[in-house]
């Protein structure tokens, strides 16, 4: 019941944010040079379709009514039609999401688990030479342009060593289902996951190192040690558990950043996900797709923030639901 009320409250809070994002989108379309109907319908669209688009978005109406019409369309889940394929943008995006989830999810799990573990270990000896080295290294890691790292991995593992495929999600003539397919996809995933994870790893190592060392300095950790808890237990039960709070927060807040990395990685590896879609849309000036992707990304990030809050609340009893 409390949770429901909290959810309601948070969703209510989301409303102005969502509206704001939609308005930004709307404003950008209208501020951009060129005819709005061309932006929405696509260049060289036949006049009949153009007229349809004008009708749909009420482009002949005053601006505020247009905004209303635009929001109305969005509320129906209508992000318009891609002008390259004339299919509903929402469907095109939905089709690409699983691939992105697979790539980004795997990399995220890998990077966060490994990153938190390494960071926690480093936090045990803060200021040591190893700690300084790892901190410096992790800063360098997340300073690498992800697309460049991807290229270098391709150069090494696909071009030079020929161990792994350089691009795509599955072999063209490979199996389409079963374990063979899974293995094939796994092989294709290695390099993109590696480049994405490497860069995020740097973030998580730093984040977790800071959070854990901060927690280890807390008096309740001293209490735990005075009580006689073995260090391993102090680490897991007290330090890590409490350090998860800031880690979860940053994880949630930085989802947008993560997705950015995913777009660039997908471009390098021609991974058929959302990022690749956006890239293709940019190449073909498929404005409806770019806008749709932006909206979907924004809402995803918003939902992630909500989810983060819920997880945070579950972890921290001090948060009043």
């Amino acid at each position: 019941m409390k949770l429901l009320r909290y959810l309601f409250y948070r969703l209510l809070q989301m409303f102005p944010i969502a509206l704001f994002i939609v308005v930004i989108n709307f404003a950008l379309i209208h501020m951009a040079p060129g005819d709005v109907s061309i932006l929405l319908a696509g260049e060289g669209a036949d006049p009949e379709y153009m007229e349809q688009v004008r009708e749909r978005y009420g482009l002949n109406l005053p601006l505020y009514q247009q905004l209303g019409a635009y929001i109305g369309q969005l509320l129906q889940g209508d992000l318009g039609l891609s002008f390259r394929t004339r299919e509903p943008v929402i469907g095109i995006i939905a089709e690409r999401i699983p691939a992105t989830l697979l790539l980004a999810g795997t990399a995220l799990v890998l990077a966060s688990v490994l990153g938190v573990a390494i960071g926690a270990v480093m936090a045990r000896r803060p200021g040591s030479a190893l700690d300084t080295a790892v901190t410096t290294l992790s800063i360098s890691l997340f300073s690498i342009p992800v697309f460049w790292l991807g290229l270098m991995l391709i150069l090494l593992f696909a071009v030079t060593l020929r161990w792994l495929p350089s691009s795509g999600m599955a072999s063209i003539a490979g199996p389409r289902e079963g374990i063979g397919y899974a293995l094939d996809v796994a092989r294709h995933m290695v390099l993109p996951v590696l480049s994405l994870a490497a860069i995020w790893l740097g973030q998580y190592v730093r984040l977790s190192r800071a959070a854990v060392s901060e927690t280890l300095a807390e008096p309740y950790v001293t209490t735990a040690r005075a009580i006689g808890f073995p260090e391993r237990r102090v680490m897991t039960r007290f330090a890590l558990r409490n350090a998860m709070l800031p880690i979860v927060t940053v994880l949630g807040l930085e989802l947008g950043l993560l997705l950015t990395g995913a777009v660039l990685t997908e471009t390098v590896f021609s991974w058929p996900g959302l990022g690749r879609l956006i890239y293709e849309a940019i190449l073909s000036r498929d404005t409806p797709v770019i806008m749709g992707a932006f909206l979907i990304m924004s809402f995803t990030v918003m939902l992630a923030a909500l989810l983060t809050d819920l997880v945070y609340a579950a972890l921290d009893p001090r948060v009043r639901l």
Partner: protein
Amino acid sequence: MRLWTSTILATAVLAPALALAETTLIMPQQDEPRTLTPAPSSDTGGHGPTSNIYSHLVVMDWGIVEGVAAYGDLADSWEVSEDATTYTFHLNTDARWHDGEDVTSEDVKFTYERIMEKGYTFSSFLRDVKSIETPDDDTVVITLNKPNMAFLPMMAQGAQWTGKIYPEHLWADQDGFDTGPYVNEPVGSGPFKFVRWDRGTAVVLEANEDYFRGPPAVDTLIFRTIPDANVARAEFEAGQFPYLPFNYAPPLAEAPIFEADPDINVVYTPSHFSRDLQLNLNHEALGNPKVREAIAYAMDREQMNRLAFNNSWTPGYYAGVSSLQKWINEDARFPEHDAEKAEALLDEAGFPRGEDGWRFSVKVTGPNISDCSAITEILVRQLRDVGIEAELDRFDQSTWFSRIQEKQFDISCYFGRYGPDPDAYREHFSTDGARNFMSYSDAELDQLAAEANTIRDEETRKEMYGRIQEIVVRDMPYINVFEEQKMSLVRPGWTGFAVMPGGFNKSISWFGVYGVSGPDDAE
């Protein structure tokens, strides 16, 4: 950790060994089909499957066409009347639809009339048609309003994109070629039958054993959508399919590597397209013919060839391409590189270098294809060398196209077309030409172009088109730069792809694979 490593290695070794069935051919294509009905619009993703499912009346190459006006597909032979207004086609009597029905002249008449009625893309090739008659099941007679020497080649070339023949018995009760059950489950008369379409991945076809020219060598034909050139290339190199079409081609600089590779045959295909520069005559400076001439002198094709094409393209100094050699007037020649001359001309034209060293500024744009990108990038450099403040202005393909259509450009790289019939000059250079983006207008040229395609005598036509070339080279609304050459990669043992010498004739259309056979298909 060790376990993990070995798993990766094991997978890496095993995967490529998954071999294909012997008579299966995978054809990569960049776009997913929108529909599988070819007439309503030009659908780059649909051309591959539909060109193998449907047949055409006649088709035409965009490569070497010496002495041939068209190849027959459903039409075995044809006659043209003396005044070039009546065309009589004799259809192949063995042709059957995939459902077993006979292909008749009524099908052709039905298809063409509906295309004209609905105004589908192909109708522009039929615009002079007065009537279509069917004296018998195997004869189609097309009568034109006025003589048009270009009718057959132009129509034949357009046919492979949007001019395929539909079965009347299945489509008669549909309102158009874009509705009804056969839109995405096509029934044609071509060498392959439709099997299924896995959206987003593949269209699967199987050999039509009853094809009127005999069954194809390939049993299963799969069109796979691979939007990305990198993926296509990697998969080709991994041996996943035997043919990497030119639109996926890697940089020409890598050609020597492929040529040295015994497992790859590099195929170069000539084209009747050029790479040229379109100059917008509305531009303050470009409106001056001297400036345009100066630009022609400023441009160094040899350097471009060296830098961008590994010296493998043919510079274009004539207003034509060598694949259409017979129409070229060798007396009309664009100037060769001479930077001093260029500067002198610019001074003369009233554009001396300013204090900052610049004479005037132009923006250089072009379609987002790699050769044009390279040409424009080098051109900018060459123009700057003679004091023209040139800047790149790149767009994606569709933006670029709409901009040049709206004449919002200064100089653009372009792919001019000279064939299959020189009637193409009219499209580019006559005042109302559909592809005259330059705002060029010359009364003599307009008159010559309008008249030339009605003349039957080839020598006279050649003279007239020669004069047109002289006018164009004199006025230089455009400057030819290179002849396009397509580079494709084919695995040894595979023959008959349309890009290969003689392949088009066998495969009937750029997307046809009827003539293709693999290493295991003993000839």
